[in-house]
């Protein structure tokens, strides 16, 4: 659920980068952080283990365009991909507005990708959320590796649903399609916000009209 601050005319969206361990979620955020101007970003908060794996989560606040008079702020989070940190993943998913599921394109990671996707669905379910209503994007990362699965297979196992979501081939380490992915999920959230805002506005006008008639 996005946080709307009417006093400051500000709206905050929470985007979580989800996926199996070592799939490149933190790399995505690090690249975004390196490319966004200093006026539009906060500190990239990251807590990693000695082995450089994300232990807690990464957090990156970003300022973006104004929509309907509201300044928009995006908070990017990652989750630890390791299986044992499921509680942390559930915490990070609280009040999420949109998901970027980062899949590792390597053959040997297919099962982990699917386990992670299932875990995402399970954890959303624990918060009475589901992927029917939650905007999400797929990113097939590490496309520069030699042992990658074809897109047909990745799409078959991860995007085989009633609605085909947007998906991007990416190389997060070089930034390829990192911003395309971020922009895609951001635009979905902005669209959802503007649409709901329009609906709310229509409802309030109708209410005023009804009360006037009475």
């Amino acid at each position, binding site marked *: 659920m996005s946080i709307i601050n009417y006093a400051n005319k500000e709206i905050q969206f929470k985007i979580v980068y989800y996926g199996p361990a070592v799939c490149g979620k933190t790399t995505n955020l690090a690249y975004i952080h390196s490319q966004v101007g200093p006026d539009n970003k906060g500190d990239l908060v990251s807590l990693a283990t000695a082995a450089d794996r994300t232990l807690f989560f990464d957090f990156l606040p970003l300022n973006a365009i104004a929509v309907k008079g509201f300044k928009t702020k995006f908070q990017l989070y990652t989750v630890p991909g390791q299986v044992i940190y499921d509680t942390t993943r559930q*915490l990070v998913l609280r009040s999420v507005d949109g998901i970027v599921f980062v899949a590792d394109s390597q053959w040997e990671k297919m099962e982990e990708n699917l386990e992670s996707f299932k875990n995402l669905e399970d954890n959303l379910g624990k918060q009475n959320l589901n992927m029917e209503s939650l905007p999400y994007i797929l990113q097939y990362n590490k496309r520069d590796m030699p042992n990658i699965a074809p897109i047909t297979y990745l*799409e078959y196992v991860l995007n085989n649903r009633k609605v085909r979501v947007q998906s991007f081939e990416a190389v997060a380490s070089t*930034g390829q399609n990192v911003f395309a992915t971020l922009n895609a999920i951001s635009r979905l959230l902005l669209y959802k916000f503007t649409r709901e805002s329009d609906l709310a506005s229509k409802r309030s006008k109708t209410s005023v009209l009804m009360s006037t008639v009475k």
Partner: protein
Amino acid sequence: MAFRFPFFKSKKPAEAPASPPPAAPDVPPPPPPPAPEIAQKIVPRQGNLAAALRAATATVGGGASPAQSAIFKPKVSIVLKPEASAAPAPPPPAPVMAEVVAAPELSPLPDTPATIEIPMAEILHLLPENVFKPGAAEGASLPDMISLSTSEILPQLPKGRVQVPLGTILAAFPPDLIDTSVADSSNLKIKIPLHLIIPRLPESVMSLPRDQVKQQVDASIEVPFSERRARPATPPATPDVPKGTSVEELLAPAAVPVPDTPPAPPLSPLHEILGISDGRELRIPEIAEQIRVRFNLLGVMIATEDGLPMAGSLPSDLDSNAWCGLGHLLFQRFSKNGGATRTEPRRCMLSFGTFWLTIWQDHGIYLLFVHQLETVTAEFEQRGAVLAREVALQCQQQNKTS
């Protein structure tokens, strides 16, 4: 990277007492650990017999891998999700999100082979050593390939792994090699690497549902974020992945008829030159950056008639203010001299030894390129002139708007 936690008190990074993110005040109890998968994974053992068998089958090739790419024909349609509203007018379309449905189990299609052949050498090391009789491999006739039934494989594809009973694989070996007491009592399943299976299957078995609808995206929403500088020049291994292009766009055939969709407006020359296909309005800084990437330039600046920099960047050792001013002065001088001959210079190229400066002028807007000599081609010259015109028009237009 220096790790900072400005809004969290310092806490030891641990799973259980982890500090929640701002919007996560409640901590649900950790679920019990998942039950371990029983006897599903076999640790490869590299015993002597296995090594002997591998050597015996070393001549077996890896098999030809069919092309991995495939073309989807996604059905382009929009699903509208009705939403309750007190307003009498019908609500605008809701954003379409993915609905969760179970991935359909695959059934063999008419063009699906009943079996696929996998080189035995590729999976030999996956077999447990003790299923073979000691020393039996010497001089034995070993199979080159093993046939696996697609009816057994296809239902497992959505799970991201394929397992085959050990007995199925052992059936391909001469019976006198197998220790039947071990093989018969074993319920083990062998995990076959996917890269041995997927390329041998027709792509039609992985086709997506025909009634699948596309996630709705509102093109009127402005792109929120842009990169400050171009990505490093190291080319990716998959050069056919253009920036900002989704997988769906890549897989979609070029000439898919889209019913009920109004034709896209024609792209401006600026969009065409920069290779931007969505026709969105480009901001001046973005144009400068796109030009730099498109022509592999060292730097690009867009400057006003007075020589003031508007957008772009130059290499760090060059002063952008000075260079924009130089362009202004140069053209001022040229115009002064050229006035008598009724010529109006549009482009000026200067060499500075290690690099070149090319300046275009159009409608009082200067477009400065810093580049290497090799960059100068016929296309560079032709498109540079068009770009200068288009950039000038954009500047005028956006100046009016603002």
